[in-house]
């Protein structure tokens, strides 16, 4: 059996690393309203919320369409949770899309 990540800070950082390195994810963001962060000693991991039944990941995306990016994040984070023996679901929230991505998508539509 793999080493279980019992430390929530370690888990949050692992989730953040997996989600952040997924193609199409610009960055993790704490979002509007009450910031979604995981507090760790001496700091915080933004955009990762370790809920009781789900691990939520809040991202800013830099490309369209969004579905492959979201699927990629879910797969990457699920792999981390499975490796840690964590039964929680993965929840992806797209908090923002970069302006360039919106402009590019608009340009492409104009070409037709």
């Amino acid at each position, binding site marked *: 059996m793999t080493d279980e990540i019992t430390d929530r*800070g370690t888990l949050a950082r692992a989730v953040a690393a997996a989600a952040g390195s997924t193609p199409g994810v610009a960055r993790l963001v704490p979002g509007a309203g009450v*910031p*979604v962060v995981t*507090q760790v*000693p001496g700091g915080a991991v933004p955009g990762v919320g370790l809920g009781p039944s789900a691990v939520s990941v809040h991202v800013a995306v830099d490309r369209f369409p969004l579905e492959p990016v979201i699927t990629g994040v879910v797969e990457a984070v699920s792999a981390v949770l499975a490796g840690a023996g964590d039964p929680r679901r993965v929840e992806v929230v797209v908090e923002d899309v970069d302006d360039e991505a919106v402009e590019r998508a608009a340009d492409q539509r104009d070409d037709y």
Partner: protein
Amino acid sequence: MANTATATKPDTPAAPASPPAPRSNGSVGTHASLTSANGQTRIADTVVAKVAGMAAREIPGVHSMGKGFARRMGQLRALVPGSSDVSTATQGVSVEVGEREAAIDLDIVTWYGQSIVEVSEAVRANVIQRVEGMTGLKVVEVNINVDDIFVEGEDEEPSQPRVQ
């Protein structure tokens, strides 16, 4: 499962049900046995309280610790020259320490605008980790009492009235 655990222990070679029953919930081997054949280790309440207090303060969502009056007295005391910050480390912490286990109660003040659930989860996890790691005691419970919420700018003088 219990049999395999006891069988691997070197000090109990042929006694699966030895009289001093090993702690069933001590699944991780980091919990040092505080009572050994060659002597006993006692850890004072203050030690556990200090470790717990420092661990709670490591979480950025904790503004300060302690109940209302004691907290303000602590702030005054900190201004007195020559007073060490040792007394403030245990402020807002009360502990019960047994031979192998510890129970911890914390009074904390958080910042406005944060998830209190997240802060208390982070505090609880860090306090358990630090106390178990540093003292070898099993932390059975960490009760967190969110005593107040700190609103930035609240302590400053009231702003100008909006109407004259």
